[in-house]
């Protein structure tokens, strides 16, 4: 569980996050949605420790991040998996080396055999058997995302962060990635936080949704509530695509 209390963050005098309060629950896919520039990525980077908030508290399982010692921060980072928007795979390394990387950094050399077995296990989990020796440039975008997922879960993390995990993918592959993330969340019993503005993802895996607008938490709920809400800002965002607009019109006509 990750709790965010009164979080403020700004750049060059402009306030991006304006007092966010929210709890990301364990064993659930927690989605952060909102338009471009709403502060989603800044919130994620603050939670990851890549940005330091000006004000507010971020608690990991009840303990404020600001009270973590250097060793505790190091231990925490071992419990975090991250899926980046572009995959962020190391392009000079093969698929296997990429997935092995977090294990190689934090385990003894003598555990190489066990590490290799673990890598095989997670690659099998994300349906990437047989691609071990390929370079990221030699595989498709969807496969790169799956390698990224494999690398994120190889250390058995407690927290999984995903920054627009299905951006740039075709709808079918995007659904596969969404489902995979949700399955892993339940299987590993982890706190998963996903940034997205893809409403298909919201429909698919939105177990808990936080809607950000101009750095403020404008709405919270789940996928069943978001399509029923009368909140103007949420309605504007959710039904901004033609497809969802037509669905809404059909709903209103009782079709």
């Amino acid at each position, binding site marked *: 569980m990750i709790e965010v209390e009164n979080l403020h963050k700004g750049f060059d005098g402009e306030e991006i996050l304006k007092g966010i309060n929210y709890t990301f629950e364990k064993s659930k896919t927690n989605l952060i949605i909102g338009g471009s520039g709403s502060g989603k990525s800044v919130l994620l980077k603050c939670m990851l420790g890549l940005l330091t908030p000006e004000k507010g508290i971020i608690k990991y399982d009840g303990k404020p991040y600001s009270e973590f010692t250097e060793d505790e921060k190091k231990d925490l980072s071992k419990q975090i998996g991250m899926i980046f928007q572009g995959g962020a795979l190391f392009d000079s390394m093969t698929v296997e080396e990429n997935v092995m990387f977090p294990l190689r*950094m934090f385990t003894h050399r003598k555990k190489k055999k066990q590490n290799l077995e673990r890598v095989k296990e997670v690659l099998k989990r994300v349906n990437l058997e047989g691609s071990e020796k390929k370079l990221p440039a030699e595989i498709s975008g969807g496969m790169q995302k799956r390698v990224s997922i494999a690398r994120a879960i190889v250390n058995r993390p407690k927290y999984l962060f995903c920054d627009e995990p299905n951006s740039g993918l075709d709808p079918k592959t995007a659904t596969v990635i969404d489902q995979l993330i949700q399955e892993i969340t339940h299987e590993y019993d982890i706190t998963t936080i996903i940034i997205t503005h893809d409403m298909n993802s919201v429909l698919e895996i939105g177990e808990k949704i936080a809607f950000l607008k101009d750095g403020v938490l404008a709405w919270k709920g789940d996928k069943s509530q978001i399509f029923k809400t009368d909140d103007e800002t949420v309605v504007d965002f959710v039904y901004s695509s033609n497809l969802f607009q037509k669905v809404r019109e059909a709903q209103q006509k009782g079709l």
Partner: protein
Amino acid sequence: MNYLHSIGEYFLMLKGTFHRMTKGSVLRGLILKELDDLIIGSMGIVAFLSFFIGAVVALQTALNLNNPLIPKTLIAYAARQSIILEFAPTFISIIMAGKVGSYITSSIGSMNVTEQIDALEVMGINSLNYLIFPKIIAMLFYPFVIAIAMFLGVFGAYAAAVFGGFVPPDLFVQGLQEDFIPFHLVYAFIKTFLFAFILATIPAYHGYYMKGGALEVGEASTTSFVWTSVVIIITNYAVTQLLLS
């Protein structure tokens, strides 16, 4: 103010590079890879340039020696002094600012724009140490490159002067040994070590702190070459003033 900010940021980067060290076995592999990329990979161009620079220095000296009172040994003497004191350490370092410097900036810059640096940080790895420290260690071997450049430069001068018929071999060798001051070698290698550090760290700074996309990676490489060259030239002046004047 921007310059002051950049200078401060550069020194903070250096501080960050030497703490929270990466695991030894991983670091060893990274250093070997950087040795291959930065040192071994530069040998070909350095050898080619050094040989021909040496040859041209000897040719120019020989062609401008019209006075019969000036001994022919001066050709070798002038070639030796210019190669050891300036051409090998400084000129080759400027060339390396283009070759090695651009490589360092673009490789770190590409990692930056594709969020690979963020990925390292999220995993709890000190990205400064992981990316820059192995380059600094690999560049400690840069003086070997310069030593080879010196040798090949003198050899090029010998080839041009002797095979070009400007001076007999024995006179060339005599000129090479004339008034040799060993401290000049010490001076050359002291500045080579400084240049090596500059070559590893200034391009790394430009790559690590660049913002933007692929186009900005190219711009950062150009800026890095300009600043690395400027700092090398200024350091060269300062070291020469301190050690030789």
